[in-house]
């Protein structure tokens, strides 16, 4: 049986376990009097969980490790002796053979694939049998163990509670483990990249054109500085020039001036803005803002204005970030005790003086933390720049010139015809890793700043 079918069988077994366990508990109950530490249903759950969890855990692991085991088995067959020893062709043949064996393909490019396909099918069948047998043993062992423990005095209720707690813990670890997995794969691919391209060339090189890579000096065209500059220029400079003032002003208006009724409809409206899919912002940037920016540049006499300018992408990204900044600034301002405001007003300060000189400075750490989080979001933002920024990496301060960003380059490198071993493709992972490290640091700093500030007022 396949892993998927086994999964359903195990679930059905669990259901049966539930009824059997419960029935046994009821039977034992009727033969005795006195207090019971658990209801029959708890015993049912106890048996059901013990019957299903061990085989399910096994199947989950099996799902990941068995393909490699099957492939190893195929390689061990005499037919596989004529496989090319390493490289791209070897894995292509193996994957063709696998597809043939599964009936997912009907012809093969390599003759050897056709030869290997029956071996593949046989190996697959053998391993499926092993899986079925092991799952059945585990299910039965779990069932027997738990069934025998169904006694009137057995605390099935607390036992179930403990298992549920472990399940919840497991669920909360999934996201963390996945992150570790992502980091591990990024690290692995990046390590391969850096075995081809020197780290120094990548981090400090100022020339980026991955289309042509000289195999004798692959680092020459893979200098990431222009990309990081473009990312910084669009996400941390232009976008923030839009998002910080407007976000802050809207927060100030909402917390200090707006009537409750006004606040009640403006705030949700701003939050809706945060829910607009970024791809929508993307074509707004590409189709509306970018041409307008270019026309404007031409109007004021700039001849080399690009229609994929940094300004267009940055402006729209800034608008996208406004609700984010506004919401954090709003929280920080609201956290400043009202006694500060009263104290300042009672000195004869006007409301706007009070805001500028007391409230904003008092809320500043929170606001700064929020802005850092916003920056980290902006530099990781992909859709807007994919659609509106250019693919050409230039090291420029001119907002009307075309610039590219790290995320845009990653997309470009990984789409289209990519050979999965070239420096060009691997560069995407190195870029991703660097971006990941930068945003991680930004987030950590931001959280520390925000936390310090919370402590100051609690």
């Amino acid at each position: 049986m396949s892993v998927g079918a086994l999964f359903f069988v195990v679930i059905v077994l669990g259901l049966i376990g539930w009824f059997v366990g419960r029935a046994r508990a009821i039977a034992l109950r009727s033969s005795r009097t006195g207090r019971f530490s658990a209801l029959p249903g708890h015993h049912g759950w106890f048996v059901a969980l013990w019957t299903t969890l061990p085989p399910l855990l096994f199947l989950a692991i099996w799902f990941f490790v068995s393909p490699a085991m099957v492939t190893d088995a195929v390689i061990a067959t005499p037919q596989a002796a004529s496989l090319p020893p390493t490289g791209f062709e070897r894995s292509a043949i193996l994957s063709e053979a696998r597809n043939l064996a599964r009936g997912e393909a009907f012809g093969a490019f390599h003759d050897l694939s056709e030869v290997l396909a029956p071996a593949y099918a046989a190996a697959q069948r053998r391993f499926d049998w092993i899986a079925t047998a092991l799952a059945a043993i585990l299910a039965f062992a779990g069932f027997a163990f738990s069934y025998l423990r169904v006694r009137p005095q057995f605390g099935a209720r607390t036992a179930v509670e403990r298992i549920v707690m472990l399940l919840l813990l497991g669920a909360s670890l999934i996201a963390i483990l996945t992150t570790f997995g992502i980091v591990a794969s990024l690290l692995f691919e990046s390590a391969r990249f850096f075995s081809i391209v020197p780290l120094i060339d990548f981090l400090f090189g100022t020339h980026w054109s991955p289309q042509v890579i000289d195999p004798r000096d692959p680092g020459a065209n893979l200098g990431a500085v222009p990309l990081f500059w473009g990312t910084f220029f669009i996400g941390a400079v232009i976008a923030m020039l839009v998002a910080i003032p407007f976000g802050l002003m809207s927060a100030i208006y909402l917390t200090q001036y707006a009537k409750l009724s006004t606040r009640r409809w403006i705030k949700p409206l701003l939050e809706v803005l945060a829910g607009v899919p970024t791809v929508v912002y993307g074509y707004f940037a590409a189709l509306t803002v970018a041409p307008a920016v270019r026309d404007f540049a031409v109007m004021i006499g700039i001849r080399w204005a690009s229609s994929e300018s940094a300004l267009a992408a940055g402006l729209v990204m800034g608008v996208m970030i406004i609700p984010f900044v506004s919401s954090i600034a709003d929280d920080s301002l609201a956290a400043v005790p009202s006694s500060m405001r009263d104290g300042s007003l009672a000195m004869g300060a006007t409301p706007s003086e009070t805001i500028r000189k007391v409230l904003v400075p008092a809320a500043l750490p929170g606001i700064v933390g929020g802005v850092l989080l916003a920056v980290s979001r902006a530099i990781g933002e992909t859709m807007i720049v994919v659609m509106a920024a250019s693919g050409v990496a230039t090291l420029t301060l001119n907002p009307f010139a075309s610039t590219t960003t790290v995320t845009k380059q990653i997309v470009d490198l990984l789409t289209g015809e990519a050979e999965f071993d070239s420096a060009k493709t691997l560069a995407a992972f190195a870029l991703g890793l660097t971006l990941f490290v930068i945003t991680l640091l930004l987030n950590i700093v931001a959280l520390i700043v925000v936390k310090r500030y919370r402590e100051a007022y609690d």
Partner: protein
Amino acid sequence: MSHKINAHNVNVFYGEKQAIRNVSIDVDQEDVTAFIGPSGCGKSTFLRTLNRMNDTVASARVEGDIRLDGEDIYSKDMDVVQLRARVGMVFQKPNPFPKSIYENVAYGPRIHGLASGKAELDTIVEQSLTRAGLWSEVKDRLSDSGTALSGGQQQRLCIARAIAVDPEVILMDEPCSALDPIATARIEELIHDLRGRYAIVIVTHNMQQAARVSQKTAFFHLGELVEYGDTNDIFTNPREQRTTDYITGRYG
């Protein structure tokens, strides 16, 4: 003798609810005036009408006639910003700004443009801190944060901050309620020293404090002014039964 503040037939409402009923009171320049009364009777509310801090409460509405040196403070021509510079306020909980000690005191003079240069500002800061009895304790750490001081020091800093704009009246709303007895004694001493230079109105829950620091006492109950007169008379020889009950601790 002319009065510094004349309040006549003042009513204050929070929405529909009336918090102050028909209160009339005159505050003298030379005196410290104490407001006493059970919690919720409207002492703070009335105090806040005197510098129009009630304007910051959206639901609050003030009726009646309140004059500062004969000028109607609720008239259209009255500049609230100027009024609050003339009538300073110290709050129940010390509320120094999260700025340096120096900046806390310099805040008022700066926004009102009282100093024409750094030297003059320094003088104002030193003078205000001296008058608030804090100078000797903080003169070497003026750039430390005001919030790093002890509670009692913070409250004296707030008094210095209020003094710095050279007000005519200082309103204090339970300025010692968050302080220990020693810090309280220092503030009382300070009020004693400031008397005469500023008209002072102080709200307090502490009978002994009212008796110690004030010359005039007003007893509020349920939004009404029950009795107002010389502190000595109020505490030794009250005219109203309700006053007697309150100051002897029979209710409150």
